[in-house]
């Protein structure tokens, strides 16, 4: 376990040494502050459009951080020839992968804490109340979703030849699931057999990342989600992350690294 945490620590240090997070955070803050300065009919209590823009920026930035950070982990170790000395130590390939996953996931968690704190402060400046429970649930579900994406990107980094290809494929897949995942069953019902069964099977197979997107509930001040629902969603996400990680470990064990 110590080995896994040591690797994770290195990944976290890498994130805060790189400029990606700072640039994205400043960009988000700038966009939100500019949008907040717009005057709509002399009403300074209008806030939901601002919450929507801020949350959209947070989601995009978090996905960029998660996918780009994860996609380059194994390939850069191989390119820099640091993979051999790493594996020469008493460290298994599984531990290395788990460490990379944990590091990326925790680093994304830290980034999310900063982003959601900014979001909360921005919303509170107009709404004058802070629904902490709702923000906590939204942040947790968001983080679990990133766990699935990170595990998927880690598996991709072992399958695809270049980090750029992996990054592009991850973005396309994640965007497809987030935008259309919820509606595949409706489309399937209008198709004739056997296409209906194939599409419905695909619908059940994919990780429904859109389940973790509770932005509308936050934007429109809906009451907090039931904790059991939150728990089931978390278990669902962790199960997919575990499945991708196990697949990645199996691929990595058989992969020639030289």
């Amino acid at each position, binding site marked *: 376990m110590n080995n896994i945490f040591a690797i994770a620590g290195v990944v976290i240090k890498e994130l805060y040494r790189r400029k990606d997070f700072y640039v994205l955070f400043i960009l988000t803050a700038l966009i939100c502050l500019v949008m907040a300065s717009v005057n709509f*009919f002399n009403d300074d209590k209008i806030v939901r459009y601002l919450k929507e823009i801020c949350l959209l920026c947070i989601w995009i930035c978090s996905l960029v951080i998660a996918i780009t950070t994860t996609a380059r982990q194994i390939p850069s170790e191989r390119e820099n020839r640091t993979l051999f000395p790493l594996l020469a130590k008493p460290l298994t390939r599984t531990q290395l992968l788990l460490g990379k996953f944990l590091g990326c996931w925790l680093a994304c968690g830290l980034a999310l804490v900063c982003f959601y704190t900014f979001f909360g402060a921005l919303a509170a400046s107009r709404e004058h109340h802070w629904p902490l429970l709702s923000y906590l649930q939204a942040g947790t579900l968001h983080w679990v979703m990133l766990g699935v994406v990170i595990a998927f990107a880690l598996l991709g980094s072992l399958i695809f030849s270049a980090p750029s290809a992996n990054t592009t494929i991850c973005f396309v897949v994640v965007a497809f699931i987030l935008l259309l995942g919820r509606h595949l069953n409706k489309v399937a019902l209008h198709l004739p057999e056997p296409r209906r069964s194939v599409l419905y099977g695909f619908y059940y197979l994919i990780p429904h990342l859109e389940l973790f997107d509770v932005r509308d509930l936050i934007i429109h*001040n809906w009451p907090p989600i039931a904790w059991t629902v939150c728990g089931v969603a978390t278990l669902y996400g962790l199960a997919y992350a575990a499945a991708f990680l196990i697949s990645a470990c199996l691929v990595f064990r058989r992969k020639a690294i030289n």
Partner: protein
Amino acid sequence: MRSARLPLLILIALLVLCCGLAAWLDLWFQGWQGNRAESADLLNVLMGDSRRMFANHFFVKADAYFHSGFYPTVFDNREAFQTPHMAEDSGTVGGRNRGDETGFLGKPRDWIDAFSRQLFPSRHTHLDEGGASGDLGNSSQVREIMPWLRTSAELNPNDIRTYTVSAYWLRERMGKVAEAEQFLREGLRANPDSYEIMYELGRVYSENKHDETHARNLWQAALREWGKQEAPKADPDKFLFVEIASHLALLETKQGNYRQALAYMERWKARSPSPAAVERYIEEVRRKMSSADQTHTDQSSQNPGKAP
């Protein structure tokens, strides 16, 4: 020596050609209708006419906000959402909605569908009725639709419903009469022949400013414009005609101009979906008119020296 001079001459010739073309093109460009550089609007410069495509998207987005996020997608049954509810509830447009507005999601199709409904808004609410909180005293929450309506108007200044719908909510639920009037005037500048905006502006004067004379003038102008634009059509906008004529009729009745009121009521009745109800108004006005005439005759007989 000669070979060195030739490229130089070609270069000079090309420069002269460039200057000549630039001078000619500049004059042509200044007079060209598609010249975006004349516009001071950044959106217009960046997007050109394509911005109109996005205007409707933002108008629908405002309606999604009106429902606190509970809104059908292109994959859902949209029969009950053909006319945005925020527009229908404002009384500025006629509704074409059918079916159940609360059940467009239908029954859950599978366990993922059932589970996901607990993670997005899945209850029908309106912001003017308290939205997600259900607090009826908090109807000013409808302010949240305003940024999208404003953006929609910026993108397509010729979409008239954006002005009328915004103005209604601004003055009715946000108490911003001056802003509503200013926005409507902005719309009228972009669409000088719009009877819809004239009618809504008349409502601002009648209901909020209690300036009946100004309201009458605006509604009469609206009725004239309606006659010019809609009357020749095979399927005219009856909803707005009924609204304008009925408001004018009631205003004239209130002011005691019964003959004028009756004239408007006859026009109202001719296009009303429920002429029997208008007939009752007509009877009432006739009764008032005859009693007013009777009073007038009595007063004349008591004071025979005065002029009628």
